[in-house]
Every structure is written in structure tokens, then in C-alpha cells.
């Protein structure tokens, strides 16, 4: 059953619907330089969308490029890459704190967030990893490789994907291994060119590395790194665009291909992260134009964001079997991440 809710006619300054405590929280990335990142809440109970909940709560927009968000306890962390800050919001999306990081008087641009070891970790595109104490919101930094993107925690270490995305065509091809106690890089691992996303299995045996290659002769690749054996192997997928970890060590992958109109379409696959084995396709649907993938680690619901970068995106909600439950217009550009809200 499909539901289409469009709240796109609501002006930004108008109070949106009250966000539901049961629903889906969507972070819209927005356009580069457009200051149009936004948060919306889709109520799974009454099938309505509360648009621009951040602006409604704070009287101002979140800013430029909403890159990532995570919920830690009663707090929501939102990494704003373009606006170079991290918001810490309460359950009503009211800003409690704004975290800005500097190194040598240079303001840093947050990318991806991770919660591990009772700490919030954040990569900064200028080449740093940050560690935030959720109680005090105090932060410390350590240097990693160039233009870090995704990160994960496994076997007592933080792994950071150093993309070198701003060094094109000389992309980076390493993971930084950071000791979280000493909080410094202790080693690095060579992987395929331009690593951008990482996931680890629950046992801390495998790290899965998504790299985009050099957009030319080096192809995108999913690789599995055996931590104990310190070996790297290639996984049998083509043009992986996104990955997200679900419950029971199931790694969800979105692989891209072109449709008849040269639009990018995404099809989903599952991978057994604990055994490093493909589990086959997930559902029968292709998603066009594909943009992002999120998975709720508790329920196994899968959220696929679709966007053409010029109109409001759509979020498709799939059950754990891969069947589309419904979809909705997310009242913003480029749905970057979806989180399921629990009371």
C-alpha cells in the first residue's frame, strides 16, 4: 500500500504539523551552497509529514548540507558539513548546543557520525577525527588521512575511511586505525582508491569498505577486511553506491545501474557480514533516481532515498522482506538519512 504525502506547499516560516514521536526522521542534505538542509518527521501513525521541524523549533534553518545524524539517548546530533557545525538537539529538535571544531584557527567541516564506547565520533573533512563526550559535549581531535568520510568501530579501534576526495585525481586509498584511548592514529590499511563508507560486523571480525574508485579506470568496489588476519578481499558486487548495517549482521547494499533514460537506478542486495557471504537480492524493486540507503537496526526496516537533485526527494519504506510498504515526499532536497523514532 502506497501513501503519498506532500507538504511541499507549506512555506518555510509556517509552523509545521507537530512531529510525531512515532515516525521517521528524515535529514535532507540540500544543495551545495543552498543553505537548504532540513529535517522532517513522517508520522507512521496518521501518515502525515511535519516538514522543517528544525526551523519550527528554532526559528531558523539548520544551514548548509545536512550530512549525517544520529540519536544518542535523548539527544539528536546533526552534522552540518557546509555550515561547519554539529547541532545537539533535544527531542523537540530545539538546539541545546552547537559544536564547532577548529584546528590552527581553521573551522572544520563535519561529515559522518558514529556512536561507540559511550562517545560520539565525527570525521572532519579537513583530515581529523573528533571525539565528543555526550555528557559534557567536550571534544578532542586527532589527525587522520585526507578528507575522511565514513567510520566504524571494531575490535577496540576506530577505523576511518580517508577518501582524499578533494585531491582528485590523486585520491587517497587508506583507512586510518585510531586507538580510542590514546586517541591517535596507530596504523593505516591500504584499500581500494577513494574509500567513503565503512561497516563492521558485531563480532568485530570484518570491516566492509565501500570505495568509489577514481571515477575513471579504477572501479568502485566493496572490500572485506579480516581484522585478525589483516587481509583484504573483494566482494562480488558492481557499482555499489551505499551500504548500511541492519540487524543480525545483515549488510544492506545499494548497487547502481543506468535505466533507459540514463538515470541512475538502485537495486538492493544483502550480505552476511559475519560470514562475508552474499545473501542475494533484497526485494524486487529498483529505485530511480537512487540517492541514499538507511536501515533501522532494530526493526530491519529499510529506507531508500530517491532524488534528482532538483525536486523534493522521496523516501521508500521497505519491510524486512524487501516489500515496499509506502513512500512519501520528504519536503526537501536529497534525503540523506532516515532514522526511526521510538518513544
Amino acid at each position, binding site marked *: 500500500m502506497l501513501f503519498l504525502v506532500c507538504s*511541499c506547499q507549506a512555506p*518555510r516560516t509556517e509552523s509545521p504539523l507537530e512531529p510525531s514521536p512515532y515516525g521517521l526522521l528524515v535529514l535532507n542534505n540540500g544543495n551545495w551552497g*543552498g543553505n537548504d538542509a532540513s529535517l522532517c518527521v513522517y508520522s507512521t501513525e496518521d501518515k502525515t509529514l511535519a516538514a522543517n521541524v528544525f526551523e519550527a523549533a528554532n526559528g531558523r534553518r539548520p544551514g548548509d548540507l545536512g550530512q549525517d545524524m544520529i540519536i544518542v539517548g535523548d539527544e539528536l546530533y546533526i552534522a552540518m558539513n557546509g555550515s561547519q557545525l554539529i547541532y545537539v538537539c533535544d527531542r523537540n529538535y530545539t538546539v541545546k548546543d552547537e559544536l564547532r571544531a577548529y584546528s590552527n584557527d581553521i573551522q572544520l567541516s563535519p561529515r559522518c557520525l558514529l556512536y561507540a564506547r559511550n562517545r560520539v565520533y565525527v570525521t572532519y573533512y579537513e*583530515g581529523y577525527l573528533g571525539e565528543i563526550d555526550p555528557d559534557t559535549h567536550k571534544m578532542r581531535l586527532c589527525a587522520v588521512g585526507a578528507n575522511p568520510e565514513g567510520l566504524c568501530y571494531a575490535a577496540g579501534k576506530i577505523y576511518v575511511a580517508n577518501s582524499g576526495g578533494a585531491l582528485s585525481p590523486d585520491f587517497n586509498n587508506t583507512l586510518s586505525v585510531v586507538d580510542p584511548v590514546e586517541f591517535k592514529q596507530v596504523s593505516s590499511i591500504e584499500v581500494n582508491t577513494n574509500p567513503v563508507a565503512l561497516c563492521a560486523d558485531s563480532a568485530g571480525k570484518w570491516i566492509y569498505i565501500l570505495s568509489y*574508485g577514481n571515477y575513471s579506470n579504477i572501479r568502485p568496489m566493496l572490500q572485506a577486511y579480516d581484522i585478525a588476519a589483516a587481509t583484504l578481499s573483494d566482494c562480488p558486487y558492481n557499482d555499489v553506491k551505499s551500504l548500511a548495517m541492519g540487524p543480525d549482521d545483515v549488510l544492506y547494499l545499494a548497487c*547502481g545501474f543506468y535505466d533507459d533514460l*540514463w538515470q541512475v537506478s538502485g537495486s538492493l542486495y544483502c550480505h552476511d557480514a559475519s560470514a562475508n557471504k552474499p545473501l542475494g537480492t533484497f526485494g524486487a524493486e529498483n529505485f530511480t533516481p537512487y540517492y541514499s540507503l538507511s536501515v533501522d537496526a532494530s526493526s530491519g526496516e529499510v529506507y531508500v532515498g530517491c532524488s534528482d537533485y532538483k525536486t523534493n526527494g522521496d523516501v521508500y519504506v521497505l519491510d524486512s522482506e524487501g516489500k515496499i510498504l509506502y513512500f512519501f515526499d520528504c519536503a526537501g532536497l536529497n534525503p540523506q538519512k532516515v532514522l526511526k523514532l521510538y518513544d
Partner: protein
Amino acid sequence: MHFLALLAVLSLNVPQQDTLAAARSTAARELSFNSAVPVLYMGKEQLQNTPAQSLSEALRGFSALSIKDYGGLGGLKTVSIRNFGAQHSCLVLDGICLSDAMNGQVDLGRYSLDDIASIKVEIAGSNDIFCSARQLSGVGAVSINVAPPVFEENRNFGAGALLSAGSFGTLKSGLEFKCRPFPKWSASGSLSYLSSEGNYPFSIRNGTQTQEQLRLNSDISALNAQLRVFGTLPRGSLRLCGTWYDSSRGLPGSVILYTQHPSERLWDKDLFLSALYEGPARLNGQMRLSASWTSKWNRYTNSDPRYATPLDDYYLQNEAAFSGVLLYHPWSIFSFSIAEDIICNALESNIPNCIWPWRLLSYSAVSAKLQTSSLSLTASVLASLMYEMSDRGEAADPFAGLSPSLSLSYAINDNFSLRASSKQSLRLPTFNDLYYPRTGNRDLAPERAWQNNLGLSWSAGNIGASADVFYNLVKDKIVAVPTMFIWSMRNVGKVQMLGCDLALHWQGRPLEWLGLRADINYSFNRAVDLTDPSAKNYGHQIAYTPRHSAGAGLQFELPFCRLSYSLSAVGERYSLAQNTPAYRMDPYADHSLSISREFSFGRFCRLQLSADALNITNINYEIIQYYPMPARNYRLTIKLSY
């Protein structure tokens, strides 16, 4: 200094030369009335009296044109005719087409009005078949004309100096000269230097809050030198032109909420040389031959800390262009022309994977015109050939295409004239479209435009009006689209435009001591995206295209000074393809005032004082979203000529 105080200072009672003769036809009205295509015109008199000091400021008075302006003196300024996009516009300086093969758009910001005698914009074709083939290639042409120097009485020399100071640390100084060393040869030249801190304050609305900030990294310094030689030959005339432009500027970038760390700079060094010969041809024909050389060197740096080493890129474009046109009048009512342009472009750069492309372009046109006392019928066919080469990589395939055009005007009586035109044109892909590392696409085809115009002109004495309706289509639009992992240029997109342009002109002397000239124009343009019926933006107004826009100019000639007012008003637009309230941009109106006065000392020495107050309503409107324009600002200019 406050503007009213300046007005008082300038109100000293010194007689002023009357330049607004009552009830006389102007070139503007004549051009519009008899034209088979819509024509916009500003003569020397208007240009001198308008508050505008640069070409981009002057063109904003025409509602049929949209000027993209990224704000500040250093911000990129381009002109788009009826919202086709700047790459469809042809900019012509003294009969020579200017171009930029790398990105397809010429920055208007560097052209001041100091040397310009007139500006003429022709839309959907040209009345004049004695023009270069390249000039027919766009959806219209913006022609900047520079007149040969005029000498008073028996003088053979003249000189001038200019000093202008404005808000935000803006200072411009210049010297100019003219001479006539031989009876049939004259020359003029100018040298000017502009510097501006450009750090203007602006306010930006963010939800229910308004934030006050200062524009950073918006400075510019620019040197502009020009030399022109005009010669009369035994058979024909010759014009030689050389210009040098050297600038350094900061690029402030878009305003990013909660942070502001602009890190980009741009340097330009442009050389332009041209020679244009016009004279008789065999068989009682006329010919015009021209050759030009353009070198554009740009350096771009970005010290953003995200780059491990700061970006330091340079680009060098060279263009050699040759143009010839032959015009014949076999019968009094019939004429035809043959025109050929050969252009060679080359680009080199230090950016990784740049293939240093070469381009050979040929434009060939055949035009014919039937002209009676009441009817004018013009037909043209333009053939475009493009051949690309590169020693360092794969070049795009050759391209050939034909673009026909047809226009007619019919004078119904002494007061009414009807016109109709239809024109096809091609926007060739630029070097950036084809070869820019990663995003370029060698398989691009040209963007296709089809224009249809129907217009009516009315003229009676010193008043004239015109109304044009148009229907335009753009197919195979060249746009950046997201592909598997990166963006790429593709031919996707279809846009339909339906609109009208209205213009009213009046010039007269309502009171003995008051001369008045009024120009008012309005444009409506419903430009909608028809690319994909299933898309959310299907049928939506395309981005940055107002439905409504208007311009007005009022020039008062008073006994003690000249006063002028200009208005550029633009209705709501959307910054994104989908027209949602989140991306709606507010309408704006830019009102500017100018007052000037000329003092004479002796027979030849003149001092002109002028004061301009720009954007007097003090609103930081935006033409490009998050690139705020300066609010109210002032300019005081002293010009001495001898």
C-alpha cells in the same frame, strides 16, 4: 556624502546645453518602428545620463534581458536574452564578436560605458544582412558600438581625465585622449584603473531571524587600457582596436549560514586585437573584412583547508577569428549577402587531465532582403561546422548543422508597423561542457533554440510604443545531471517559453525649462520545463526566470542640471527547478538616481560632475540566491575634458 547634499552642491545655476530637442525622432524609435525583429537601443545621450556606469548596469534597464549578477564589482555578470541563457547571447564589440570558448559566457563587468557610443540589442535575428555570420548564430546579439572621435572646430587633439569615488572603498581613475595626426586618420585611447574593497554590509533572512553580515573577499582591482585607430582609405575605411584588461579579485562565494570563510581568488589578463576593413567590392558590392586575436589568461586559487595543497589553476584561451561579408544590391528593392567566419580556439590549463582541446569553427551564412517602402522581408540560412582536436586525449566528433531564419516587417501606415520573425539557432557545447575532467561529456550535441516573434510598433511624433509576443522552444538543453557517482553534462531538457514584451517611449519638452525622456518596458515570460511529464517540476517555471520583469528610465533636463532615474524590477523567481515556497525568491526593484552637471571653461575645457545613488531603497536583494547585491550606495564622478 549624503545624496541630497550633493544635489544642492550641484544646483549652482550655470546654463546647460539643451540636448533633448523636443519632438524629434530618435534612433531608438526609428530602429524599433521599422524593424523586422525586436530591437532595444540606448544612444550616447541616454548612456551619458543614466545612473549606470557599466555595461551590465545599463542593460538591466531592458526587461527583455536578464542580467545574472553575483554581486559586487567583481561578481560575474552575464546577459541572457529572453532567458535563453548567457551562452545563447552573442556579444559584439565594434563589429567583432566576443566569445569565451571555455564556458560560453562573456563577463560584462569589465566593460564600462566610458567609450561606448551606443548599445543595440537585436532579438531573434537581425535587420541588417551586412553582418558577420557569427552574429547570426545566437538567439540575439548585444552590439556595443564605439564611435570615432569627434573634434571641435580645427582641433586635432583632445584629452580627458576621470576620477570616481564610491561606497565600499571604490575608486576609479582614468585618462583618455584623442588625436588626428593626419586628416583621414584619428585615434582614441583610454587607460583606467578601478579598485574596490567591496566589503559591503548585507542582511540575510533566516527563518524568523535576520542576520547582519559583511561581504568578505569581494575586493577587485582592474586595469583597462584601450587604443583605437580610425582611418579613411582611398577605398573604404579601417578600424584597429587593441584592449588590455588585467584584474585581480576575490570570489566571495555564496553566503553560507553560520560560517563564512571565502578562500577563492581569480586573476585575469585579457588581450584583444582587431582590425576591421569596410569598403566597396566588385560588382558594386560592399564588403567588410575583419580579423581578431583574443588571449584570455585566468588564474584561480583556492586555499580552502580541505585541499591538502591549495588549488592553483591556470587557463589560457587563445582565439583567432576571421570574418568576411559581401553585400550586393542587384536591384533597388533586393539585396543579398554572403558571410563567412572562421574561428580557431585553443585552451590549455594545468588542471589534471585537461586535454588541451582545439576547435575549428566555421559559420557560413547566406542572407537575402527584399525592401520596399512598406515591406521588408529577410531570409537567412546559417551553416555551422565544428571540428575538434586534441593531442592529449580524445576530442569530440565533428558537428554540422543548419539554422534558418525568416523575418518580415510591414508598415501598415505612417503610425503602425507589423513584424514577424522565426529563427532557429544552436548553442554549441563549450570546452567545459565537453572536456572538463570527470563532468565533461564528449558526446554532447548542441542545444537547439527555436524563436517565433510577432510584434506591432506604433509611433506618433515624439511617442512610440511596441508590443511583441513570442513563443520559443529549447530542446536538448545542456545541463549537469547526477550520474552513477559524479555529475556529468547531458543533453536533457526541453523548455517552452510564451511571453510578451511591451515598450513605451516618450520624449519631449512639457515645459519650456524642462526636457523629459521616458522609456518604460515590461516583459512577461512563461518559461516552463517540459522535459519529463512524470517529474515533479513538469510545467514549472525554470529556475531564475521571472514571469514578470520591468524596466524604466526617466531623464530630466533642467536648466541647471540633468537628473535621471532608472528602475529595474523583477518579479518572483525560484532558485530550483521545482517551484516550492522553500525556493521562492522575493521580487525586487532597484531604483537608482543620478544627477550631473557640466561646466565650461573657455572654448574647449569642460568639467562634468555627476553623483549617483544606486539601489536607493537599501535592500540587499539577490539575483542569484545567497549572492546578495549591495544595498544603497553612492558614487561621485569628476570628469575633465579638454
